């Protein structure tokens, strides 16, 4: 038993696990722009996640009859495409829904994510349907598995740090200040002359574009994507839990939350490997229940998350 726990703990530092945690951190950073900065209730994260993943995959895979493309473009172009496509999708959706109040926006966005998933599931010409897109190129294809994962983790880590710095700067800038203002009180933001709709739309598009980038990173790491990956649990819900546990409004919190939750989730995988195989699905479900319980516990006892939003913006000279 103990050595299994030990093995699980070591497993947590496996680059494979860390890389996934980092990809989730990207998604959580994107969601933080929407919910943390702006108070937008987007529970259709999976839709932008999927849009990014499929875009990058279709742009970079070798030509095939299975789905649209592939266009065999470099991975960098694929990732850029992921950002652009998910951003454009967000712009389109945002233009329609941006004025909805938070609970209605929630219902609307989850519906849109489901439509995107249905489309990917049913339109074989585009996405190869439920069979999914495979043989997505990995940037470090030639390396042995361990090194490849490590290299990818380093790549993801660079992206996470870079994104954090960019988004933190945006938050500290008057842009972020205006977003917080409209989050706190829309009427007063209007009276302060802010074009509230424009700021909302920008935050929605930026956040979703970041999620798209996360999707692209996911596709090239996993090498295979199918509509199942983007079901609400792993496409949306777990990212929300990460952000809320870590601390909405705080970029460091979003990253911390992503690692804590992903570790918790994978740590339990290690323990579950002890159990007979025939119970695997059930035990997997048990882990999801645990994630749900963590969310509720945080809401009840630490509603601002592990690292609450800092208030020093503009208030202190730097």
């Amino acid at each position, binding site marked *: 038993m103990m050595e299994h726990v030990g093995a699980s703990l070591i497993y947590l530092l496996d680059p494979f696990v860390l890389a996934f945690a980092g990809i989730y951190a990207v998604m959580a950073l994107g969601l933080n722009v929407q919910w943390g900065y702006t108070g937008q209730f987007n529970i259709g994260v999976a839709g932008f996640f999927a849009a990014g993943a499929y875009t990058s995959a279709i742009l970079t895979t070798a030509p095939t009859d299975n789905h649209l493309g592939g266009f065999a473009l470099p991975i960098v172009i694929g990732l850029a495409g992921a950002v652009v496509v998910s951003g454009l999708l967000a712009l389109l959706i945002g233009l329609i829904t941006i004025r909805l109040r938070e609970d209605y926006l929630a219902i609307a966005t989850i*519906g849109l994510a*489901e*439509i995107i998933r249905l489309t990917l599931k049913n339109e074989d010409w585009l996405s190869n349907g439920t069979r999914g897109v495979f043989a997505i190129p990995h940037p470090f294809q030639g390396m042995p598995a361990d090194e490849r994962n490590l290299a990818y983790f380093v790549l993801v880590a660079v992206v996470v740090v870079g994104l954090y710095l960019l988004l933190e700067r945006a938050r500290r800038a008057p842009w972020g200040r205006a977003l917080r203002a409209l989050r706190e009180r829309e009427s007063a933001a209007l009276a302060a002359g802010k074009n509230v709709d424009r700021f909302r739309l920008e935050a929605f598009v930026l956040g979703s574009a970041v999620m798209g980038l996360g999707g692209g990173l996911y596709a090239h790491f996993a090498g295979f994507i199918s509509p199942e990956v983007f079901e609400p649990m792993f496409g949306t819900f777990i990212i929300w839990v990460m952000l809320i546990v870590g601390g909405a409004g705080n970029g460091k919190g979003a990253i911390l939350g992503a690692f804590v939750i992903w570790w918790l989730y994978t740590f339990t995988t290690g323990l579950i490997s002890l159990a007979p195989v025939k119970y695997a699905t059930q035990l997997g479900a048990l882990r999801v229940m645990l994630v*749900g319980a963590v969310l509720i516990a945080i809401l009840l006892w630490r509603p601002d998350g592990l690292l609450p939003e800092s208030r020093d913006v503009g208030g202190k000279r730097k």
Partner: protein
Amino acid sequence: MLTDILQLLIYGILLGSVIALSAVGVSLIFGILRFAHFAHGDLMTAGAYFALFFMTATGASIWLAFPFAVLAAILVALAFDRVVYRRLRRTRPVILLIASIGVAFILRNAVLVIWGPDITVYESGIKPPMRFLGLRIKEDQLIIIIGTVLLVILLSLFLQRTRMGKAMRAMADDPDLARITGIDTDRVILWTWVIGAGLAAAGGVFLALDTRLQPTLGWDILLAIFAATILGGIGKPYGAIAGAMVVGISAELGAGLPGVFGADWSLTSYKPAITFLLMVAMLLWRPQGLVGGRA
């Protein structure tokens, strides 16, 4: 062609019935507790599986299992209210909404843990549908429609004739005034869960009877339930029923009509999208609902 359209209408009413039973609860919870209850679909699922549990444990028929399922779902809802929702009532409604998503995942995965991922049915064997003027309807489907009508009548009697039912409508109208008037709001909330969860379980059993049991049974229909609630106007139980019929019928017609008119393509796999677009249009055009409720 007319027969085909009528046939689609029957399917629409069938779907609408199942949606209606849950939408009433969502609408009352939205009106009284002021949040969109995302765990409602999974409450349906739990209800459907409770019935299965009772049947396998006792060998009883689905109709004996039915009240058991309703009761069990009510207890589950009350437990979650006590442990989770009640403690969050003083915070913003959106926090309750997030919590309800957590509850949804806990419920759904509890079903997975207990009953496993496999698709099952209450009773195996294929029953031929009854035929009437060229229309096909299965016995179970007829029972579902009749059952829904009976439950709606019971609900209506409860809401119109009983003290608690009237108090529930009053509180959905104006929670602050209800409090000032001396209405026992804690008891109204308790009864809201009883009614909401009970009807959700009934809807879940009906849905499982018409299709099959699987852990995402209720979740898959949640959007349609929200669409019906919004269409009917938040806090308006009768509006929710009407909204459910609109959603059910338009989903089936939208999915089936192209085929009836000889198209070689079909929108069947996009049924959820049809209800969804209906709802978004509604949110943008008339957020207070077709018959007027709280915006």
